[in-house]
């Protein structure tokens, strides 16, 4: 029983799939092109739908025209140019590369570049800090060893030793 219900549910959704217009094509390549085009061309009326998705009059007309042009054997760029000539660059979801749209490509590249520079500089800075820390530590150790060796013979002369150690405290 459950299986029957499940099957019924499955078939109940079939008419929704069939709602898309059925247009006869003799060439499966043209059919694929038509599909591709209607998904890439944008409806000028309902602006966030492609023409395959929209049932506005203008979208229906554009689908018809696309079908007609594809049947005539026009290729993808030709059909898109035909539409752009009438409805502007707006009608294709892929914007053309020109002076006003160059930022669409430049901005992300600049952003990545900027972040790269930032990360590299930050890394260098940190490395430098670590290096300084290590080297100052080493300096101190070295100085201590030198002192240990150098001060010994004159250990009786206290004033000289004190003077020397105070001078050593200053950073090099």
């Amino acid at each position, binding site marked *: 029983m459950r299986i029957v219900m499940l099957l019924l549910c499955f078939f109940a959704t079939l008419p929704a799939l069939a709602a898309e217009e059925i247009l006869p094509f003799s060439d499966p390549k043209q059919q694929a092109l038509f599909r591709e085009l209607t998904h890439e061309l944008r409806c000028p009326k309902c602006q966030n739908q492609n023409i395959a998705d929209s*049932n506005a009059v203008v979208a229906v007309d554009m689908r018809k025209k696309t079908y007609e042009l594809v049947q005539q054997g026009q290729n993808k760029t030709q059909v898109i140019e035909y539409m752009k000539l009438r*409805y502007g660059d707006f009608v294709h979801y892929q914007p053309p590369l020109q002076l006003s749209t160059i930022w669409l490509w430049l901005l992300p590249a600049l952003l990545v570049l900027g972040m790269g520079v930032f990360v590299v500089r930050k890394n260098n800075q940190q490395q430098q800090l670590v290096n300084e820390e290590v080297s100052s530590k080493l300096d101190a150790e070295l100085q201590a060893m030198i002192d240990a060796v150098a001060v010994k013979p004159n250990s009786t002369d206290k004033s000289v030793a004190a003077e020397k150690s105070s001078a050593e405290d200053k950073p090099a």
Partner: protein
Amino acid sequence: MRKLLFFIPFALFIGLSMFLFSGLFSDPRQHGSALVERQLPQFQLPDLMQPNKLLTADELKGEPYFLNVWGTWCPTCNAELAFLTQLRQQGVRIVGLYYVQPLDAAFGERFDLPALQQDVQQKLAGQGDPYQFNLLDQHRTLIFDLGVSGAPETFLVDADGVIRAHHVGDINPQNWPPLAEAYQKLVRK
């Protein structure tokens, strides 16, 4: 130098906010027309009221005019009829391009010319008639070539048949001044 770096994210944030804020007030329907500064596309369409009379693009040349795309089914078009009629009385030349709206484009079109003529006559008698005449574009061929996405839309065409402006939406006293200026410039030429 360090302080300057500190302000960069803030400056970016302000810039982005301003860009997005200005977007709130832009009209998404105004996205530039592909038709401006081009010749009116060739066509051969009948006069709505005298279907035997065929008109072409060349026959409309001679003086500048507004080509107004409209239909009785379109409420915004009906709303602008009164104002357009005022303009006609001031001597502005307006030609109608009748947009035939199919009942349901997906199920084919039923077309009844006498009923449409009657409908148009009634509408124009009631609201005012701004048109010199109306072109009947039953299959929306010229409408398609003009890149019209809905009604009302209006084109300003000069005496040589070159499109000078493409206005989407209704014409009203608020948005008329720049169109009037462009029209007067063409008339004076």
